[in-house]
């Protein structure tokens, strides 16, 4: 291009032309605007959450803004929180895992069956469920990474298979009467009046946040998810990382299953399905906040409780049950559409600015 000619007129040893993009960009007003925009995209969901809380508090001042309701909201939805957190690692690494909800139901049935019918000690039953989940995750990983099949279809198939097993071993019957120790340690023991299951979910959130943010592992997942070629050429073990993420999602889903069984005292085999969509809605919505554009643990936490707050409030207003699905579905659609709209606008602004 013209570069050659410019090059030749450049006296030898002259400093390179200053790259305008490197210059401290824009006026003070613009940087304030920028900071504001970042703030809005980072904490926007928290703001909306706060607005939702305020609105419901005004509409239902007697039942909504109460300690009991807060404890209820936090305590009852820990299973959803853990299941949504299970999805963060594989989604970060670029793979779907639709089997998590079925793995969750499978492991809760397994715990109940082994504990109630086979009289296994509860801890051994839990361990067996975790091992089974590990194996399911390995199968997912080997099919997706080893054979190079699309993760969506593999986990849908494996998930359905696992669901079939769940119905089989339970005879499609509800199993109840699980060890009271488990129920105690999940549901009835409380800190600050909130069931233990919430605190387990919070702890998991902490652990994942730390892993993703402060270890090389998290960065590697991130790069693998964004671009496998770049990752491979930078020496990452892409296959191992992807398989690892899929195993972790299965195992965390099994933890969700254990919490489920503990909080209900029993379990019905179809428990999983109603959790799948909300879990995806929460992880995707979570990727629009705290660290926008990246699947992240705290974003998922915020998203789960935002969704649950909304639904609880609507129920207190006396709205019918189908509103749950309306709410979750809308959240998922908005969560995936919003960043696109945002990016498109930014791209057109950049184009207009001639960069």
């Amino acid at each position, binding site marked *: *291009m*013209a*570069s050659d*000619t410019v090059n030749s007129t450049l006296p030898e040893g002259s400093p*390179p032309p200053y790259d305008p*993009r490197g210059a401290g960009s824009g006026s003070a007003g613009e940087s304030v605007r920028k900071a504001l925009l970042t703030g809005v995209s980072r904490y926007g969901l928290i703001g909306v959450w706060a607005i939702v809380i305020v609105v419901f508090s005004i509409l239902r001042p007697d039942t909504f803004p109460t300690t009991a309701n807060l404890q209820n909201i936090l305590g009852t939805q820990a299973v959803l929180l853990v299941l949504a957190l299970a999805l963060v690692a594989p989604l970060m690494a670029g793979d779907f895992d639709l089997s998590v909800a079925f793995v969750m139901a499978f492991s809760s049935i397994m715990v109940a069956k082994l504990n109630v019918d086979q009289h296994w000690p509860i801890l051994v039953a839990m361990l067996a469920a975790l091992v089974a989940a590990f194996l399911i995750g390995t199968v997912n990983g080997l099919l997706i990474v080893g054979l190079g099949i699309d993760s969506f279809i593999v986990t849908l198939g494996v998930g359905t298979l696992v669901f079939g097993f769940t119905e089989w071993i339970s005879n499609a019957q509800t199993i109840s009467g699980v060890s009271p120790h488990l129920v105690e340690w999940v549901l009835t023991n409380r800190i600050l009046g909130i069931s233990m299951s919430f605190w387990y979910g919070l702890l998991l959130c902490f652990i994942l946040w730390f892993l993703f943010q402060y*270890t090389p592992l998290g*960065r590697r997942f991130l790069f693998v998810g*964004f671009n496998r070629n770049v990752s491979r*050429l930078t020496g990452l073990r892409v296959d191992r990382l992807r398989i690892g993420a899929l195993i972790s999602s299965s195992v965390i889903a099994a933890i969700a299953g254990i919490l489920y069984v503990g909080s209900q005292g029993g379990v019905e085999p179809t428990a999983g399905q109603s959790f799948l969509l909300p879990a995806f809605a929460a992880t995707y919505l979570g990727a629009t906040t705290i660290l926008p554009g990246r699947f992240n643990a705290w974003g998922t936490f915020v998203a789960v409780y935002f969704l649950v707050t909304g639904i609880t409030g609507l129920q207190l207003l006396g709205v019918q049950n189908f509103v749950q699905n309306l709410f979750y579905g809308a959240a998922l659609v908005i969560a995936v559409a919003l960043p696109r709209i945002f990016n498109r606008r930014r791209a057109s602004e950049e184009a207009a600015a001639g960069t």
Partner: protein
Amino acid sequence: MGLPPQDQAASPTPTVESGGAAPVLSIEHLSRAFGGVLALDDVSFAIEQGEVHGLLGENGSGKSTLIKILAGYYAPEEQASLQVNGRPVRLPLAPGQARGLGISFVHQHLGLVPELNVLDNFIVGELAQGRATRPVSWSAEARRVRGILESFGLHLDPRATVGELSQVDRARLAIVRAVEEIKENLQGDGEARGLLVLDEPTVFLPREGIDQLFALVRDVVARHASVLFVSHDLDEVQAITDRVTVLRDGRLQGTVRTAETSGKALVAMIVGKDLEEFEAEPRGGSDRGQALVVRGLCGGGVEDLTFSIERGEILGITGLIGSGFEVIPYLLYGARQAEAGKVALGDDELEVSSLDPRRMLEGGVVLLPGDRQLLGSVGELTVGENLMLPVLSEYASVGVLHPRALRKVSKGLLSEYDVRPSNPEAIYHSLSGGNQQKALLAKWLQTDPSLVLVHEPTQGVDVGARQQIFAMFDRAAREGLAILCASSDYDQLARICDRVLVFGSGKIVAELRREDLTKNNIAERVYGAMSLNPQQPEDPNG
């Protein structure tokens, strides 16, 4: 500039065949700027009826911009005008509009669906046009298509899967399909003549296939349409075209009659004069030891290749696209699987089939790929994250990262390599091309490698950064680093290399040493590669 005759192309003399009829296509004052740089600068030329018109130029000369304007992907700047068959056409063209004017394109990748059969591929365009529920009589269509193919001397089974055809037959199928499209679009317009645009159609073809392809092209020109033949292969252009238009740096260098112009004159038009001598001081001496020895490397179009590179040496490899030089960095890094051969890296002798990036990294080899967006970086993530990815474990104790140390080190690296802004938090793709490349250089050189494989290191890089990158290479080589630079930028090679290997048809056809390294010398060997082959290389065994 010593240009061949007939420099003014805007008003070409009528060719013998056309007898004064209006040109099929006439372009005047065509320009197009990208971000203030003119990719096309006031280009005018015309394609006569019944001629094969060549369009020649290096990478970045503006050829593909011109084709994309015709195809309707880009809008030209305002003053441009276009006539098809003597009738003015309003610019910009909409995508697909050219087709209606009787202009059809066959691109390098042919646009065939390999999983489908010949018939499906042939009529897909018609199916896309018509009513979705109109029934198709497959046997009648098969007969019709077989007839059409036969009329061009192509004996293909309409039910054969396209992926199983030879490369040549695939290319010929694509061409016949395009010609049929032209005929259909010009139906009922007796005056109009069509234009077939062949955009680098021979890159993937074996030698013997090219003759078959050319026979088909001659048939097309004789009976159906003019042809615009886009290529950077001089031999082919000389073999098939009646006239040639040459572009360089977006500007028209002239339109000449092929028969009246020597190959040397064409090369001069394509690459221009050496504008300056390279300035780097000579580096190092002998006895530096080998950094890498390659024996019998095969794969990706390269055949039985043997060469070595010394410590502290910058070795350039070049050739035309498709000559095989451009895959070598990827084969040696294990990014792309090689078929056979051995590499000796220090004291280790490795089978190329066992190479993988992780292993090469451990052996001190790094790769700077030509495609920064797809292979070099993740644009959506920050500069710091991209920069530090290969060394994360060095900044972690008991598995925990030290964010502060990471930030400090990355900041230091960014200012050392003059990446602007030197802010690790900046999003990588917000950087200019030059700064992106400098950041990638920093990413890899911080690992203290012994061999750097680079592919087109200054593509999309501004002038200033280009100089800086040259200086960085030079400094690294002085410290004993070996650099293998695959590039088709002859100016760059002449400036930075100690030695340049020129490739043709997957083999080394010439070796140029320091004292012979000028832009023109390299270009002459590259464009001579086809005709010299398979004669003796210039400097066997150097």
